[in-house]
């Protein structure tokens, strides 16, 4: 196993430019699961970002919140302003593992790892976050909902690192996050849902689901239903939109049927009364 220990983001980008197969390492909470058994992973080369203090920042500006790539769940839980401005970040951070994971796991790592069951990603997507990808040649910004291209695949080039996550400060009059897991804590999601509605006129809905497709997924058809103000009277009225948005599978955590059914119910019961069309 090779580990590179950069002392700055610039140095880290230099390493990335030279070696295309580097695996960036932040909290390591995903990488080290069953580590002694995963010998194939031991032969790879890692880039340890964990000491880059310049990435361990939470910055509030006039129109956005920027989470440096090393920001942990616990960092956000402790932030005095996060709860009022981005309550779903708090909601989801509480449900990522337990305190032992929250203290080490990072939001950027959750994005980079690319699990379709990622708990941190849906709320970021529902808040229209974008990802800053930094390389030797500079930094570009990619909307999170355009970041994934397939199962654990993304637009990040091998010479790029996630350096920050930026979340626009907007007014929301509705925000909800649901996680249905096996246990109430420390459980990987069977199905999860994050939804926001911006207060601006016309209202913009964002509906994001996890564990129901190859990636965390923005649900365009459901959003269209909501934007169109289509009348919804029961959970099943979401069925067609769900069918077009997600492709759940049967796995050891649950069944595809269960996921579709519960997604419709979570949508219906969360939204009932929120707009006049849904009752």
């Amino acid at each position, binding site marked *: 196993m090779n580990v590179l220990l950069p002392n700055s983001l610039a140095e880290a980008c230099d390493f990335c430019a030279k070696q295309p197969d580097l695996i960036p390492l932040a909290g390591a909470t995903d990488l080290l*699961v*069953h580590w*002694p*058994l995963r*010998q*194939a992973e*031991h032969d790879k080369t890692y880039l340890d970002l964990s000491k880059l203090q310049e990435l361990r920042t939470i910055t509030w500006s006039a129109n956005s919140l920027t989470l440096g790539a090393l920001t942990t769940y616990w960092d956000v839980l402790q932030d005095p302003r996060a709860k009022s401005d981005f*309550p*779903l970040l708090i*909601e989801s951070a*509480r*449900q990522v593992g337990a305190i032992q994971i929250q203290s080490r796991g990072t939001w950027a790592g959750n994005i980079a790892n690319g699990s379709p069951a990622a708990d941190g990603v849906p709320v970021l997507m529902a808040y229209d976050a974008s990802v800053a990808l930094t390389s030797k040649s500079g930094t570009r910004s990619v909307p999170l909902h355009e970041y994934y291209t397939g199962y654990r695949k993304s637009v990040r080039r091998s010479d790029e690192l996630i350096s920050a996550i930026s979340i626009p400060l907007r007014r929301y009059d*509705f*925000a*909800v*996050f*649901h*996680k*249905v*897991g*096996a*246990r*109430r*804590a*420390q*459980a*990987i999601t*069977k199905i999860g849902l994050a939804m926001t509605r911006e207060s601006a006129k016309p209202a913009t809905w964002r509906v994001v689901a996890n564990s129901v497709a190859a990636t965390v997924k923005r649900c365009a058809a459901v959003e269209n239903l909501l934007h169109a103000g289509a009348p919804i009277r029961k959970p099943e009225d979401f069925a067609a939109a769900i069918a077009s948005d997600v492709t759940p599978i049967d796995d*050891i*955590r*649950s*069944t595809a*049927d*269960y996921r579709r*059914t*519960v997604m419709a*119910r*979570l949508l219906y*019961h*969360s939204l009932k009364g*929120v707009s006049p069309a849904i009752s």
Partner: protein
Amino acid sequence: MIKTDVAPTLAGGPTLIPTDMPTTNRPMNMGQSMDDNTSRLDGVAKITGAAKYSSDMLLPNAVFARFVRCPFGAANLETVDDSAARKVPGVIDIEITPKACTYNGQPVGHVVAESPVAVNRALKALKLNWKKDSVKTSIRDTKQVGLLKGNAPDADVTIRAVYSTPVQTHSSLETHGGVVDHKGDKATVYASTQGTFSVRDGFGDALSLKGSDFEVVCEYVGGGFGSKLGGPGKELMLAAKLSQKLKRPAYVMCNRAEEHLDTGNRPSSVTSVWLSLKKDGSVVGGEVMTYGGVGVANGGGGCNVPSGRYTFANVNKSHEDVSFNAGGPRAFRAPGRPQGAFAEELMLDEAAAELGMDPLALKRKLAIDDVYREMLDQGAKLIGWGERKANGSQTSVMRTGFGVGIAGWGSASPGGNAEVVIHPDGSVESRTGTQDIGTGQRTTMGICTADAIGIPLSMVTVQIGRSSLPPGPGSGGSVTSPTTAPTMMNAATQARTKLFEVLARQGGDNAADFTVKDGVVLKRGEKFLSWKDACAKLPADGVMGSASTGDGGKGNSQGVQFVKVVVDCETGIIYPKHVIAIQSCGRVICRKTAESQIIGGVIQGLSYGMFENRILDRNVGAMVNPNLEWYKILGPCEMPHIEPVLWAHGQTGVKALGEPPTIPTAGALACAVFNAIGAPVRHLPLTPDKVLSALEGARS
């Protein structure tokens, strides 16, 4: 609108854990035990991390070994190329024998090296050529189990159903294995075991030493639940062979995956039943066919239904063990009972629903004796059974359900030995080789000694968990306390009598003139000497009492459990809220450890009912969830309010407490879910998707 609950509560459901009742310091159990307030004697060692478990015996110059195991349910190891593995720095030896394997996790050899890292690297560097074979992975792969035909001619109601339970693994926090330190003519074995003496007697050639030339040490054991009974097991046998050969300490502990695959489990079960009842609830006929899923084992899949706890007339029972490609069962906390109780309790609730009876009334009628009836009446009050609504009558999203189940246990004591030494400085030593797997053995032995002599517990030191001490029973069948408590009390009484004899000889009195109360020696009822001053009259070696108990003493025990749940009918998630666990205990030695046993049994029962399930890949027979991430056990946030009720009612003798409290829990939970949603979920675990499917079935 921001939801703040950890788990979804839809449509204004109730708060998830409503109770703020006290959970410890339980007034209803006070005054019923020999010792209400003592905390574990080894609690400090455990809480500070000073307690050394076998897995903590990291001896200087040790070698580390791990088995090479079959990754599939059925496969033939055709060729082995270990040349690269042997070149891994630190590797000492590799032994692999090509053979046909019949379950995932079956050992074919081992790797031994200077460090755990080197072992893992060598395992990875092995080139093993496996040829996969077709697999069977469940009872149903072999047996077509359908609804049984038949009914009693005079029946008013006949129910038919098929129930099933999954494989549950023991999942002790400390895995199987240990360390053997062979020094040529002597050896020490650090074993994670439930049987100090069965380990001692099981090595044979692996150690090539007489039992008196080596010592088995297991002062602390990180759980076992049945899976660590019996002889040394393959892990310690390997450690013994390696240590003997290499003349170095050998460390062999399973990892979590190996623990799931190859250290036993509670076998799966399928139960098909028809049961005929009269309108008054009497059972007038039936047939029960049970199947036990025993993997590659030849037996051990018993499913205890009918249990004999209810009066069933003319009910025939047949059982068959079914083999397939998976690790076999071992004893697991009340073997055969929880799976049987699940079918039996839910079956009776289904019958009660057909009859239009309250299931509590039906169970009360059918229970074989008045002890159960009295417990049922008391438990019904404590849980608030009066608030129970008729099956399926609720229409809200969050629905409340009540369920009840009963338990029984009896097994004969295997006998045991104990010694008590009173020293001239007044200190007292109790010795028995039996181990403590978490039950509180060390503490109860101290309490028994102090109580029998009449001195404060602080004067007693307890030695357990060593084969050099007087032999005691294995921790199985809930016989440990019923065996060791009276034995230790006899030994203590005998040691005290010897002290009295010394005092009598010196003063020209009769030994019978003396007694001890609260650490003061009395002669004919009057204060004679302080305990210390009396003991000062002993010879330098002190006096020793020793006692043996033969077999026989039975710790028969009964119990009932009530479970209250709330079911979220939109997501199918069930929330246990409250459990009343009434357990007959006879004479309780230590209240806290007794309550702890009952609570632990309930927790494992709930965990079994809600989460636990060994899942095998149907194509290759590999376990899909050999970890604790996908093999879920109950965590602190799912804990209901559990009230253990120690039920003495004039009983004497020490009764079984380890196993009975885990018997009825999953069944009572299933009954409560049935009550809440109006449809039975007949297959454990009660996962949300099954709950929703049952609800759909009830609707259509």
